[in-house]
């Protein structure tokens, strides 16, 4: 094995850079990733404890941004790695990345998950191959379970979402394949339907996508809260295969990250990963 190759492996490599175009690497502007991360930050409250799982870029960045701005007492646990309060030195694309160990503690993963199942989480982040109008999420199978048209990875930690006080959904793909009227497999249970009498479980609280921020009505139906800069309500509707509840009055625009927020994000997003999240 050549020393060069050894050096490359030792140094590590950014798996996203591999497919990055020059254009995507352009960092000066505010990208969708920044808007989504800022939306996460704004949804968090000081002192909360967050559990973050796979594909962690958006919640990690948002949580760190919150720590650096309005929520210094927030605790975040970077899923697989077990890193507690990682400095994101730098923000890394895999939840199990060694970069997440520049942190205050490193817990074994089984303890992270058990603490979460034990109810120690204020906020849980989840997503899905499918997300439906009641906030149910599917990470298992699209189509029939025993002969699916799409075999997903499996349910991971999201079946336990109800153990947290509140769940925030996020996805980097806002399209009709993801936003379906009803999921084919319930990996994460959303808001109870009218027929589920007596079920008091709450579903997810918020959904953050590359197009918009959404929440749920008191009846548990997904509702548009705001559209990101440059996105119309119609574009959101066109990419959602069920009818969203709408806010009263005009749909507001999601808050753009401030200059300060952008500066903070650039201190930990050294590879510009937030710049290359684009709606699909």
């Amino acid at each position, binding site marked *: *094995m*050549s020393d060069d*190759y*050894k050096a490359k*492996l*030792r*140094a*590590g*490599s*950014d*798996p*996203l850079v*591999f*497919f990055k175009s020059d254009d995507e690497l352009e960092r000066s502007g505010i990208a969708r990733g920044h808007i989504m991360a800022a939306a996460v930050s704004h949804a968090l409250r000081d002192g909360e404890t967050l559990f973050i799982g*796979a*594909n962690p870029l958006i919640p990690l960045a948002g949580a760190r941004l919150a720590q650096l701005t309005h929520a210094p007492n927030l605790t975040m646990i970077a899923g*697989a*790695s*077990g*890193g507690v309060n990682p400095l994101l030195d730098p923000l890394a*694309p*895999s*939840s*199990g*990345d*060694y970069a997440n*160990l520049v942190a205050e503690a*490193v817990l*074994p*993963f*089984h303890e992270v*998950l*058990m603490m*979460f*199942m034990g109810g120690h989480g204020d906020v849980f982040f989840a997503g899905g191959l499918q997300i439906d109008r009641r906030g149910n999420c599917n*990470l*298992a*199978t699209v189509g029939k*379970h025993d*002969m*699916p*048209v*799409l*075999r997903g*990875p*499996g*349910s*991971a*930690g999201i*079946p*336990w*979402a*109800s*153990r947290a006080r509140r769940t925030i959904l996020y996805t980097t793909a806002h399209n009709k394949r993801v936003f379906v009227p009803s999921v084919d*497999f*319930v*990996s994460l*249970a959303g808001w109870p339907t009218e027929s*589920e009498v007596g*079920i008091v479980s709450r579903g997810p609280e918020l959904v953050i996508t590359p197009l918009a921020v959404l929440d749920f009505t008191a009846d548990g139906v997904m509702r548009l809260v705001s559209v990101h800069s440059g996105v119309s309500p119609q574009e959101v509707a066109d990419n959602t295969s069920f009818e969203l509840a709408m806010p009263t009055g005009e749909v507001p625009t999601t808050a753009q990250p401030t200059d300060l927020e952008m500066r903070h994000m650039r201190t930990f997003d050294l590879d510009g990963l937030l710049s290359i999240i684009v709606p699909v």
Partner: protein
Amino acid sequence: MTTGGADGARGSKVLGIEEAIGLLPAHSESLWVGGMHMHNVPMALVRECIRQEKRFGTFYAGPSSSLAAELLMGARLVERVVVGYIGFEQLGLAPVFRRLVEKGTDIQIIEADPGSMLLGLQAGMAGQPFAPLPPGLERTSLPSTSPGFYQGVSDPFTGALGLAVAAIKPSVALVHCQQADEYGNGIFKGSMFSDHLLALAADRVFMQVEGLISNDQILKYPLQTGVPAMRVSAVVPVLFGCHPCSSHRYYNYDDVHLRLYMAAASSDAGFADYVKKFVTGPEDQEEYMRRVQNQDWSSIQ
């Protein structure tokens, strides 16, 4: 109970990779491979299992399995898979897993979740017959989809109904530590993921390491020993043995190789070519790394 070594001397557990995996019977009841996502996965041991065609009844794909699950399923060496998560995280879905399931396979797929699997493993470690689950799964599709994995149980103290999983005690565990002494005292230089628990629970533990350190070094700071020697059957030093996955503090995952794998493995022929070139083809790890480094994927469909 382990023994070894010449009379009067403590026995070393250091073995070559072929010899170590050769200790396994042709068919083992169950297998759990350590690490998580693309990190700390003892891939050299996994590849050797495929070379020697070792078969396993149940493969526990959790908390998150990537290439290990792919290769073992693709090589048809496992009869059933308990799925917590099989995928490549931000890199994408698992192509062999997808194709097998979407086209229909005789590998039995047990839809599960990592939390329940780890509670089962914890129960197995402590000799408990089963693990009651916290409330919360009832409204998901999991219990009805996998009634053999999840069973109803009533709390003997309150009468409340809930779910439970059986204790999990893998007959074989493959784990990766960055360092170990010749007796099997292993150190995780970064995350230990769930591998400490796995090593305490499994019947037989095979440990892959980047390098050996002396027992004196272990004695100097025993608080960092993540796997005690008593749990370890064999210690296998393999340089870059996790490739293309990461070994914390030693090297990152090889995203180039992984993406090329995912592209190749999207067809049966491409997967077969990959296995031939990178798994069954290379006679040893040195040759494997030479092929990796050459990055010549032209022979792969």
